[in-house]
């Protein structure tokens, strides 16, 4: 750990470590070992270890280009790691066996939505891909959860950005995944839409889901998290349990960590 990071951990009074492997692998729902991803000569993710138990909510902060989205992409099985491995409930994310895909839901920068399909058609389509048979009950429940019940017949392209984001969240949660991955879910949302999203994310903290969220929004990120990490240059430069981290203190020390690294 660098001096900057040690200082941050001391001042914040949390258990910081320079990688996220706090020996929680016993009941790990989501586990990554030595995760690396290179694009030519650029190393986007550089040997990240991660072990998360049921009910944990990890927020990852970090500057642009730190490799956060790439990390989420690998955790979601959307990108193949250059080295290392990911497993969900002990099952390795391999391309031959797709059972693990039922356990992961991802909200990305992109909504994965078809603009010319209605809200209901989008969810029905993804529901069928996931082999869900109770869509007549499940879709209204999810739409109510994200506050889109009245827009069920609207085409996705007719929705505002905030509504599309909520529809994307409904899509990501439709199959009731154990692991939820959220890539900057607050981007471009007005306060009202952010509030709706916050309520839905609060519901995810039901003790049986494991959530990893990447965000630049310190307030929202800290409020949700049970664990916090700062990713810089492809590595977890600092991490710790969130035992009441104050936003201003964390913000100050976040900058110490980010600027203290080469």
């Amino acid at each position: 750990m660098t001096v900057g990071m040690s200082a941050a951990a001391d001042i914040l009074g949390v258990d910081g470590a320079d990688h996220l492997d706090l020996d929680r692998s016993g009941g790990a729902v989501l586990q990554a070992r030595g995760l690396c991803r290179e694009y030519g000569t650029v190393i986007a993710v550089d040997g990240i270890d991660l072990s998360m138990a049921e009910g944990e909510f990890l927020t990852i902060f970090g500057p642009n280009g730190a490799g956060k989205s790439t990390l989420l992409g690998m955790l979601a099985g959307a990108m193949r790691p250059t080295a290392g491995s990911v497993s969900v409930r002990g099952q390795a994310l391999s391309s031959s066996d797709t059972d693990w895909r039922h356990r992961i839901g991802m909200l990305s920068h992109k909504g994965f939505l078809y603009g010319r399909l209605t809200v209901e058609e989008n969810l029905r389509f993804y529901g069928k891909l996931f082999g869900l048979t109770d869509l007549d009950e499940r879709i209204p429940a999810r739409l109510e959860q994200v506050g889109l019940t009245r827009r069920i017949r609207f085409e996705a392209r007719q929705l505002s950005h905030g509504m599309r984001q909520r529809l994307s969240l409904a899509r990501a949660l439709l199959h009731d995944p154990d692991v939820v991955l959220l890539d900057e879910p607050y981007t471009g949302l007005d306060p009202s839409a952010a509030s709706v999203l916050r309520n839905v994310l609060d519901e995810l903290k039901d003790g049986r889901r494991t959530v990893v969220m990447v965000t630049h929004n310190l307030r929202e990120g800290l409020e949700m998290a049970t664990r916090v990490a700062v990713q810089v240059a492809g590595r977890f430069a600092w991490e710790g349990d969130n035992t009441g981290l104050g936003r201003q203190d964390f913000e100050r020390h976040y900058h110490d960590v980010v600027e203290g690294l080469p």
Partner: protein
Amino acid sequence: MSTYLTQVWAIVWKDLLLEIRSRERIAAMGAFAVLAGVLFNFSIDTTTTRPENVAAGLIWMTLVFGGLLGVGRTFHLEAQDGAFQGVLMSPAPKDAVFLAKTTANFALLYAVSLLVLGVFSLFFGLDLGQNLGWVVFVLGLGSLGFVALGTLFAAVSVGTSMGETLLPVLVFPLLVPMVIYGVGTTTRLIDGRPFNEVEGNVRMLGAFALAALAAGAVLFRFVVED
């Protein structure tokens, strides 16, 4: 219905529904087919050339070029909002995704191929008589082989900087057997020859379509996975 078939059908339904709503590809292919028929009609001197002798070749060329217009855009609607990545992150097997995309493309191209046949029959005064059913069948086989290859290579080309312009370069060399057997068969059928005379050619077209489907189903995974 098994989960696999449900997944295939979900993608086919979605693709066709999007096409019905946008009419993006079918309009381009249909317009191309009609315009090609009109232009070819004026490009042939019927006092020196029997239309029956050249119609089959022109029909197949129209089908290939028109088909590329549609098949080349297979993944463009998918690219909006990253929707195709959402499909790839679902548990649907990649070969199911390929078969579904190919089936949807086949439905579009087959409809266009029937339009092409109608347009050329009209302009060239073709009398298909009792061979009409066989010509329709042969065009179906050719369309199937074409869309199987076209869908696979559309997935390849969409990920490159050249995009759709790369597609003909990749696909045309592989379509040579299909064009040879397709044109040969169709020419004889238009000429009123009996089906047993072209049975071998039809088998080759069928084998080509099956081989293209099988190759696509196996290779698609390597094309679309990161």
